[in-house]
């Protein structure tokens, strides 16, 4: 079986897009899901939101690109998958809509009820996609039954077997830990300590869930040595991340949760090769797989050139934007609430500069009610 190498290359490229999405949006979702847990005051919530403020929209485009690339490279996959998983996808879309307006709009009114509403938009809009994608990818491991016309023939409720539910819970836990470590990495002061403490607790739970999932996956739908290696990497990476977070090595801990996310999803995609997560056992006709779902060689060639040229460029400027916004934040950094999130100019920069800061946020004053900012006018006159 060697019709062409291009479909396999595109399978890998689409896997890469999904991996980028889960590694990058994973912590975005985690940060928003942690709002009710770590964000006990409005200032803390704002610090959390601002750690992902400039980045989350760019991160989400990885999903749109994965969707578009699937449409272009594997129309058969795109058509069957999204019409078959109609209601789960609807849930994801509702979540993404709510989440998409939450951060921009919450800052636009200085009113506790208004902000609480948009916080819930962000929380629900992060929790639902995390859960649904976890359940979804576990379903691809199990296999979605299709008929001879390549139409999904399962029911909505058939998507929720025990393995699939474990997948959903695992994804939520993993992203919570990923998000907590990201907050610890990007903040100073009290919020930093609280995020660290949470990452340790949620990390332990996540290790157990990840281990259960990858072991079960390999026992029942194993893909040989490769699958077990990926499983081992996932377990070791998440365990190491948890330990490193506790030790205060947030940078390495974050690399650990990112690596665990990668290993888990690479494991999913390895299982999905080459049947794309479809179960063709009831299908009497040509199977729905990598080759029957693929576009023509001509289209794939054009798309390959576009990907080879533009994916590195995208990676460069996204990395640049992460670098620009690399500084740690604390409640001190937030401008006063004026309902339009505009800062008063700092009146005494010399005095502010004299504050004891070591640049790594280990012992910064954390008093929320520091009088330093009191000369700012209280907007909303």
């Amino acid at each position: 079986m060697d019709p062409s190498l291009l479909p396999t290359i595109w399978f890998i490229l689409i896997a890469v897009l999904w991996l980028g999405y889960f590694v990058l949006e994973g912590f975005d979702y985690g940060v928003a899901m942690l709002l009710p847990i770590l964000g006990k005051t409005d200032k803390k919530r704002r610090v959390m939101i601002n750690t992902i403020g400039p980045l989350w929209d760019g991160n989400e485009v990885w999903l749109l690109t994965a969707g578009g690339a699937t449409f272009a490279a594997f129309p058969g996959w795109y058509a069957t998958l999204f019409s078959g998983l109609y209601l789960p996808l609807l849930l994801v879309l509702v979540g993404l809509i709510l989440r998409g307006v939450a951060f921009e709009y919450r800052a636009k009114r200085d009113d506790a009820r208004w902000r609480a509403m948009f916080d819930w938009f962000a929380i629900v809009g992060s929790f639902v996609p995390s859960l649904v994608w976890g359940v979804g990818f576990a379903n691809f491991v199990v296999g979605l039954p299709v008929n001879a016309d390549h139409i999904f023939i399962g029911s909505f409720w058939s998507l929720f077997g025990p393995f699939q539910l474990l997948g959903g819970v695992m994804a939520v836990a993993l992203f919570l830990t990923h998000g907590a470590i990201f907050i610890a990495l990007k903040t100073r002061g009290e919020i930093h300590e609280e995020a660290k403490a949470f990452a340790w607790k949620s990390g332990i739970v996540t290790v157990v869930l990840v281990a259960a999932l990858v072991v079960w996956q390999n026992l029942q739908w194993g893909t040989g040595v490769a699958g077990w290696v990926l499983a081992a990497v996932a377990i070791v990476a998440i365990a190491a991340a948890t330990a490193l977070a506790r030790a205060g090595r947030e940078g390495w801990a974050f690399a650990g949760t990112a690596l665990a996310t990668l290993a888990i999803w690479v494991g999913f995609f390895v299982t999905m090769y080459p049947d794309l997560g479809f179960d063709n056992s009831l299908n009497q006709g040509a199977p729905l797989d990598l080759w029957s779902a693929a576009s023509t060689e001509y289209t794939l060639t054009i798309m390959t050139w576009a990907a080879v040229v533009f994916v590195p460029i995208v990676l460069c400027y996204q990395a640049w934007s992460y670098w620009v916004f690399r500084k740690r934040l604390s409640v001190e950094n937030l401008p006063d609430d004026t309902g339009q999130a505009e800062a008063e100019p700092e009146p005494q920069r010399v005095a502010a500069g004299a504050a004891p800061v070591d640049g790594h946020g280990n012992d910064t004053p954390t008093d929320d009610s520091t009088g330093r900012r009191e000369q700012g006018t209280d907007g909303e006159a």
Partner: protein
Amino acid sequence: MSPETLARWQFGITTVYHYFFVPLTIALSLLVAVLQTMWFRTGQDKFLRLTKFYGKLFLINFAMGVVTGIVQEFQFGMNWSEYSRFVGDIFGAPLALEALLAFFLESTFLGAWIFGWDRLPKKIHLMTIWLAAFGTMLSAIFILAANSWMQNPLGYQYNPVTDRAELTDFGAVMTNPVLLITFPHTLAASYLVATGFIAGIAGWHLARLNKAAATTPTLPAGTEAEVDAEATAAAERAETDRQEQISGFRWALKFGAIGLLISGLAVCITGDIQGKVMTDVQPMKMAAAEALYDTEAPASFSVLTIGTLDGSEEVYAMTVPYVLSFLATGTLDGEVRGINDLQAEYEEKYGHFGIVNFAPNIPVTYWSFRAMMGLGFLAMAIGAYLLWVVRKNHLPRSSWWFTAICVIAPLAPMFANSFGWIFTEMGRQPWLVFGVMPTAAGVSPGVGAGTVLTSMIVFTLLYGGLAVIEVGLMLKYIKEGLPEAKPVEVVENDDQPLSFAY
């Protein structure tokens, strides 16, 4: 209702809703970039204040554009899976390129622009908004390429083995004559919305500031010297701020009004060329636009017709001779083919598709075509009127009439855009891909009417609720007027507050 009817309604509702926000995003991103460039060049505070003011409104709008756009990316697969399967080889490529080349660019650099005021050097920060604006235009090119292919499919061949349309010439898809004229038309129409938006808001503020001056009482004579001095100083500051607001909004009003006239002219020219291309590739759509049943040469343009609902019998018509011939063919006595002729021809040519009626819904195409043009001309007239209002040193006087003009300035072109798209899309019916795939053949076979109805209700309610929130926020920030100009400096100190945070 059948799943097909429901899927059509859902796609219509979600797309029209998405397109309430898109034109403003496309054009306002670049106009904000222009404002910021003016500030960068001149250093005048008023341009910084205008940049921040319109920039904030732009972001409120952008958020809605993004979330409504996400749905579109997946709706093809959800509701129109057979269509996706059939044309994915061609249609998917521009969609994927749009995400890869445009969405990444605009989202990443807009994030950098929003938060970069105190993190990036001024020049780099200015570059971010230009790149984001460039990204929005790039995305329009790709998505219009996909749509234009549905109007005028080329660069493909049908493969009977795989039973799908397969791409043979990507260059032909990207140089589709329909695309080459639809893109400038869409772009010009977007600028009509954004310049109407800028001019309308500026006009309303000018009238308000003008009235405030007229009604401000002279300062009461103070009893104590200190109080008096303080009050005088405060009044002076307020007056200085008012003068700067007037100066800023005056500039914005002229900028917007001139923009309305220029983009209006561009809309007319591109629309005229587009009409000729359309007559060429989709004669049925042109006939439907005019409710022209019998072929005529020379053909007259009907400005307004009152007739039976299906348009087949007219009771009263106001017509201008030769105009339709000119619109369609470029000559005064050119032949314009009627619906009945085309129906006969298509029955011969496309009968095997099982389509009975090859004409779209005539009242919808007839009236949406007129609504589009009428609202577009109205927007241009408003542009001319607003320029006249601020001639020499005049300022507009506040009145319900002037407020109404300011409100209509952005709304007229916005609805003109909607009607234009409704005409384009409904004028293509009964085809999904003209001459290649009937609409009925494209729906998802595995998705029932109940499921489509569920998602339609969910999206409609969600979008409706968000629209109320969005309009409320827009009005709040429009009313606030120009924000204070604050010094823009790069933050060096770790403890210093950021100039912008959510």
